[in-house]
């Protein structure tokens, strides 16, 4: 893989992020009312001094293009403004919350891809078998269930009927001072339900997709060759077929990342997971716009990074694409 290709992709990602910043700026300007009041938060009851301070900081008395330049400059230096609710810089608030969100999203993504592909491969072995029917039905149901409702149903189940998983938060208060390995297990224990809830929708989609993709590959000549030379069924399925069937799955996994973050927003709210989604929800209720815009910026940045990684791993997985720019 050539370095110039990577550089080009990174530059493109940065341009996309610049566009997000411009969009944030436009959204604040387009909102009805005085932008200074909007930034201060309508529920905050901002004093005239605070408004004056905001006008000064964002240059709201200057021409609009100057304002945009100031805003971009602020973001570029890591200054995303100040949350007047928390009385803290937005960047600091988000840096506390971004970890739990990344953890939740990545674990859910891995869980859904691995389980989904596994189910899909099993189903593809017998296109008209029970497993295939199960995958189809499961995929249709998974698509139709609202993710926040799945979470609530799981909470009802695991809080009253089968209390084996915690249904709220990320850590137990009583284990705050425990050694690191106890805390890790505690977080993993808290992660089970939120991650599973988030994974269920996508799991069904990956199962359906990998089944279709495997069926297409299993019909090709080299699979017949592999079978003819006496390779075991497992080798044929997982070694020969899956490597080629994996490409469309990888593409979809990259495209799904944005949806996964949207889903995480709802799941975090349901399970009180202390991530960015929970922060966004709280901030929206308080009309804390600097924080909301900061979350939008960072969530988009996560999607840009995920797309970049997908693109690069696609090239690693498909030798035919290597060397092309």
């Amino acid at each position, binding site marked *: 893989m050539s370095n110039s290709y990577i550089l080009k992709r990174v530059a493109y990602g940065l341009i996309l992020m610049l*566009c997000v910043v411009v969009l944030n700026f436009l959204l604040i300007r387009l909102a009805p009312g005085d932008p200074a009041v909007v930034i201060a938060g309508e529920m905050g009851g901002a004093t005239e001094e605070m408004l004056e301070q905001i006008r000064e900081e964002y240059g709201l008395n200057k021409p609009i293009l100057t304002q945009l330049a100031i805003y971009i400059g602020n973001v570029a230096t890591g200054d995303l403004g100040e949350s007047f609710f928390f009385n803290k810089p937005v960047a600091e608030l988000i840096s506390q919350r971004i970890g739990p969100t990344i953890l939740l999203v990545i674990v859910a993504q891995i869980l859904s891809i691995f389980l989904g592909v596994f189910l899909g491969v099993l189903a593809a072995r017998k296109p008209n078998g029970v497993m295939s029917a199960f995958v189809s039905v499961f995929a249709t149901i998974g698509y*139709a269930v609202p993710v926040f409702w799945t979470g609530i149903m799981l909470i009802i189940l695991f809080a009253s009927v089968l209390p084996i998983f915690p249904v709220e938060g990320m850590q137990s208060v009583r284990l705050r001072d425990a050694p690191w390995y106890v805390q890790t297990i505690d977080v993993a224990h808290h992660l089970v339900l939120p991650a599973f809830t988030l994974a269920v929708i996508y799991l069904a989609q990956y199962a359906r997709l990998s089944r279709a993709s495997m069926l297409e590959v299993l019909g090709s000549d080299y699979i017949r060759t592999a079978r003819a030379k006496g390779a075991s069924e497992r080798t044929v399925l997982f070694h020969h077929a899956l490597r080629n069937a994996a490409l469309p799955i990888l593409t979809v996994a990259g*495209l799904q990342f944005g949806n996964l973050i949207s889903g995480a927003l709802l799941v975090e709210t349901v399970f009180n997971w202390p991530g960015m989604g929970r922060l*966004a929800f709280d901030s929206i209720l308080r009309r804390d716009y600097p924080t909301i815009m900061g979350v939008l910026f960072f969530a988009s940045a996560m999607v840009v990074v995920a797309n970049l990684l997908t693109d690069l791993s696609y090239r690693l997985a498909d030798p035919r694409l290597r060397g092309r720019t």
Partner: protein
Amino acid sequence: MSTPKPTPQKAPQMPADTTDAATDAAAQFVARYQAESPAREAWRMFRRNIPALVGTAMLLLIIGLTLYGTLIYTGDPFDIVWAPHEAPFVEPDFPLGTDYLGRDLMAGLLSGGGPTLAVGAAAAALTMIIGISMGALSGFYGGWVDNLLMRITEFFQVLPALLFAMVLVTLFSPSLITIAIAIGVVSWPQTARLTRAEFLKIKELEYVTAARAIGAGNGRIMWRVILPNALPPLIVSATLTIGVAILFEAGLSFLGLGDPNVMSWGLMIGANRDYILDAWWPVTFPGLAIFFTVFSVSLIGDGLNDAFNPKLRER
């Protein structure tokens, strides 16, 4: 698939000349298949698809209940009419019980479907309008137009849809119209990509060249020649878009970003979520309602997909 053979009785009988009879039968056979338009053929396939028919019946029932249910089962869903948390299937006057404030859940369920379905349909329509326009222009003109529109599409795909919709709804005060617009604005990119792919494929076909040869302009070729031929996959995608839009509306109302003065299924779940450990029913019934609505829509979508692509049925 088996097709009923043309009945020989109806063919003109000319036993003296067998070649004529054979030509006749062949002509009739050809006529039979020429007479069937693609839409009619798709309908014939759809009619035989049992899950799709079940989905259609289910959706019609849900639409009927939300349109006419409140005429028979009257009562304001916001009124406090009974003790809080009455269990379902106990009190005949309140068949589904009451919520944490003592509001009738049956009334909420019947009147809450209307906004959800209306917003879902309006948002899906907007998604299709934006997506098809962007995709069609992009695929048809190519070059810098394609480049520009596809960059815009990619930009919108980078923004997490629900978060962006939340921001839009909060900035412009929540109402059914703002919500529908917000959902439409965030969810068109996939439709645009699909339309573009179809236009790229179809614009190279001979009948498009033929249309140009007889003097059809760009607009006519795009909307009257290419678009009708690109419709089958777009109709399927529109069905799925309705399902996604309904889930979106439910998610926003659940978060409390819906119109607070309009009862909706998502709002019912959101309002009752703090009390789920005291009473399971106020959140369970609206959730089931959302599920069955989206499920029926997706059964119809799958059925349409099979009907338009008979070849895919073997998979």
